């Protein structure tokens, strides 16, 4: 994932912030122990959100522990342990998503990305096989979504709705996996995940607007009048940003419709913050960056 799903920090309570950080550390430990150190480098806060969703949906109990880790050698850091499989699931989802992201990069990114993808792919493939053995239905669903993505990228010109479909379907599968045995919850989670995936896709498309225009890649937000030209004028950028904002707001509205029907138990305050404030804030940051032309800083440290 891309580091777009995170809470709005100023409104986060202090203990909630600690839980969030500890969940991140718990996930990092899980990745380290089951897939090795290299895989922890790809970790983002989005997956901590996924792990906390798992905890909330399944009503698992959490326990805090502390340890030293190589990234912060001086201070002991707190991390979470979970009575259920929250971290295992999130770690496997991470590995599966990263593998497909790398395969995607290999196809349609510049030389730098291709070389990076090529160097990491052998390791990612081994991890992927391990994770897919644990969660075959998730691996299968993500695989299908990727096939769809190749097809839609080849067609190049399609509406935003269609372009967002593969990412959204992928996230829908990831969130459906949070509940294994409750059909009704699975359906709701699927819809929640779909809207979240759509949000992520639109944010990413707006974030890459200028790069895509310069490289001639397909981006559904580029106005029709600007297709084919290398640079975007100020008006064209504003038009794209407005279009993105309208789509994002519609998406978030629909996201909330399915969100309120789900029971996140003790995790609700954190989820509320992320869903109602964090997502919107992330989008405004992306929009600001897209209009000013500066790189957004937070993307780098999460991914």
């Amino acid at each position: 994932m891309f580091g777009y799903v995170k809470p709005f920090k100023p409104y986060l309570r202090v203990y909630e912030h600690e839980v969030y950080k500890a969940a991140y550390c718990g996930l990092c430990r899980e990745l380290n122990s089951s897939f090795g150190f290299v895989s922890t480098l790809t970790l983002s806060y989005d997956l901590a959100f996924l792990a906390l969703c798992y905890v909330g949906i399944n009503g698992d109990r959490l326990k805090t522990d502390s340890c030293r880790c190589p990234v912060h050698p001086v201070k002991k850091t707190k991390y979470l342990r979970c009575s259920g499989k929250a971290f295992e699931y999130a770690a496997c989802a991470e590995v599966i998503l990263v593998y497909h992201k790398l395969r995607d990069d290999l196809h349609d990114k510049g030389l730098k990305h291709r070389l990076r993808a090529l160097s990491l792919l052998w390791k990612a493939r081994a991890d992927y096989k391990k994770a897919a053995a644990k969660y075959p239905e998730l691996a299968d669903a993500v695989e299908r979504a990727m096939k769809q993505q190749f097809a839609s990228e080849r067609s190049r010109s399609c509406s935003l709705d269609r372009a967002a479909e593969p990412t959204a379907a992928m996230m829908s599968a990831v969130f459906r996996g949070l509940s294994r045995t409750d059909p009704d919850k699975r359906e709701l989670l699927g819809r929640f995940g779909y809207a979240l995936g759509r949000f992520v896709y639109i944010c990413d498309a707006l974030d890459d607007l200028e790069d895509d225009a310069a490289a001639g890649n397909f981006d559904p937000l580029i106005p029709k009048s600007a297709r084919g030209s290398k640079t975007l004028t100020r008006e064209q950028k504003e038009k794209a940003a407005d279009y993105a904002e309208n789509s994002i707001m519609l998406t978030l509205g629909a996201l909330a419709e399915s969100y309120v029907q789900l029971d996140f138990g003790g995790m609700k305050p954190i989820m509320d913050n992320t869903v109602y404030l964090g997502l919107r804030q992330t989008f405004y940051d992306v929009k600001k960056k897209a209009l000013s032309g500066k790189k957004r800083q937070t993307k780098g440290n999460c991914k």
Partner: protein
Amino acid sequence: MNDPYSILGVSKNASEAEIKSAYKKLVKKYHPDRYTDPDMAELANEKMSEINNAYDRVMEDKRNGVTYDDDRYSGGYSSSQNGGYTEYNTYSNFNQNTGFDAYRIRQLISSGDLNSADNMLASVPIAQRNAEWNYLKGMVSYQRGWFNEAYHYTSQASKMAPGNAEYSAAFQQMNRQRSGYMTGNAFQRNSPAVGSPDVCDILNGLCIADCCCEAMGGDLVPCC
């Protein structure tokens, strides 16, 4: 890859409801909590992911049309779909004036069979696409998660039939979402009752003020 329909134990032209009930039955049967023996629980767990996978694949098919080309059952599938689709003309609700059966389409949408609903809508000639057609198309798009298309069609519907309460309610709902409304958002103070006094508050205030005045020997509201 196994045929998802045979895993669920339904025929390829089974209805949504049949598939859903078969799926729910299987989920109950293989629920891992029912098995205390760890080997059996492990087996049930595996079965569970197989069932979930099969169900997801069937539902994705219903949503998108056939998405994967497995020779073993793609032939039978497409023919069954066409069969089900041409059959709708014989339904009694078919409306000769509009050229489509809105009731049937609504049923399909609520059961989640979006692809069939969309096919039925697509077969309506452009000249006959009235407000209801636009509304239904919008609902299909909304269920799919294609919110931009949904917004477009819903706005068309409410433009073509301005008096229709159903269409304008849907359009208003989408407009609210578009301007940033999110259900259940405790951080957003957008309900008019919060902060500003309503009639009840004002009457209460008058009552109390009257009581205070009377205690001091005066009178604010002479009638009580």
